[in-house]
């Protein structure tokens, strides 16, 4: 089953990918064939199999609650394109607007 152009555009939006017209034509076919391949897993009987939650066994390392040096402020800000008073300045973002 092929992805519709609308579904493709929605996927691109939530991943913040900007697609050219050309890509919008090719990608639905390619994604669909990847999905078909993944769907083949559904044919496997997993009735008595524990879900894998991590590919390798072992347990993680924990660190003690100790304060370590942070970056110097000037280094922390070094990659920022727009710095004001020690802050990163970004265009305002209003994700939500409200109305009564």
């Amino acid at each position, binding site marked *: 089953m092929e992805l519709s152009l609308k579904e493709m555009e929605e996927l691109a939006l939530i991943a913040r990918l900007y697609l050219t017209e050309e890509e919008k034509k090719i990608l639905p076919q390619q994604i669909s064939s990847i999905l078909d391949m993944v769907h083949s897993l559904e044919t496997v009987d997993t009735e008595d199999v524990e879900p894998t939650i991590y590919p390798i066994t072992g347990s993680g390392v924990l660190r003690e609650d100790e304060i370590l040096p942070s970056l110097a*402020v000037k280094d922390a800000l070094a990659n920022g394109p727009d710095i004001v008073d020690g802050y990163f300045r970004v265009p305002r973002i209003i994700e939500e*607007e*409200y109305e009564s």
Partner: protein
Amino acid sequence: MADWEVIIGLEIHAELLTESKVFCGCNTEFGGEPNSQVCPVCMGLPGALPVLNRQAVELAIKAGLALNCTINGTSQFDRKHYFYPDLPKAYQISQNDRPLCSHGMVELSVGDRKRQIGIQRVHLEEEAGKSVHVGDSIISSEYSLLDYNRSGIALVEIVTEPDIRSAEEARLFLEKLKTLLEYTEVSDCKMEEGSLRCDANISLRPKGSSAYGVKTEIKNLNSFRAVQRALEFEADRQRRLLQAKEVVLPETRHWDEAKGMTFSMRSKAKAADYRYMPDPNLYPLQVDEAWIESIRQNLPELPDAKRDRFINDYDLPPYDADVLTTSRHLADYFEACVQEVDEPKLVSNWVMGEVLRWLKAHELEIESSPVAPKELGGLLKLIQEDVVSTIVAKDVLSEMFATGKSAVEIVDEKGWRQISDADSLEAIIDGVIAENPGPVADFQKGKTKAIGFLVGQVMKASKGQANPQKANEMLRQKLQK
């Protein structure tokens, strides 16, 4: 007309009291210079790897135990993806499929009923950074300023079952939760600094129905009072819609404290799709039974147990025990004072009355009271020993708060010692008898009420310093001769 049942569930975020952040060693202290407590991990720089803080796990387990949860031996970290400038990695490390704690329960007293509120889960996650909006409001500002000092601070998210049945119950639940998190020293729960936050889901259904109605989510609840008011408003709004046979839309609504109303937040983007996936940088979290047990053993006495002990050991009325155990510091203050003065009800009256009233007026917490428990004990001893009357003691306490001096110092400086010695009292009483022949004759004729007037005159003549009981006794003795 149908009767409606209100169904409420809460989601609470609480910052954990760790020294360093959850996945890196940056300091969590509040109020630092912007972007001074950041590193490649909490700024999401490429290649930086998270390492989990043991204390954050310990505190989350403590929270789980205090909320009667099952602590899951294996839990897992997931990435929750969304784009927002306060989230530098463009995903938040959280726990979705396998939370650290689940299936808990909190018991509430609502009036004289006991209510059990289920806890669906308590999971670990990381805090986002802070946006400062330039200009008057988020709407008028052209830019936002980003400070990542809060980014990566350890949080627990606590999700209740939809077991809450009124706005009042929601507030009582939050008060109880705050008490539990403070007692266990999991979080300082300061809503004004954002270390405790709450979102609420609410729906209505006809009484007797078991299916849930359409729910709305309410955000921007900045105090417990706001939670109660917003839920009362929202329950009422939904009730009116349903009774008019209109529909409730499944949406997020914003509480406007000043207007006292909720408003719909129209999202420009499509419904959120967080695309959760296991975080490949973090192993599943394994917690063994021995660790959980040692945390359980070291839990402090929790509020319900302390309340029962106060009633049994100190013979306090349930009301007093409730008030004194709302905060661990208040309970500690009370107990420290009882060490000094072995009359628990006297201590309880003064702590709940004068001390709390004064602290409230000065917006201070009990732990920063200028009058220490030992000092209050010193004052209460003076009452027990009849050195000062209760009325004078109130003035002494306000001097103690103002000057930091001890009760004895103040009483001596001001000459407020109660006159109890027979010689001094006798002189005053003789004067009063001489000046009031009428009431004296009345008393001697059997009008016993006249004694009250005479005691009043003795108090007046002594500028309030005579011991009224002693004065009463001596007057009777003299007049009955």
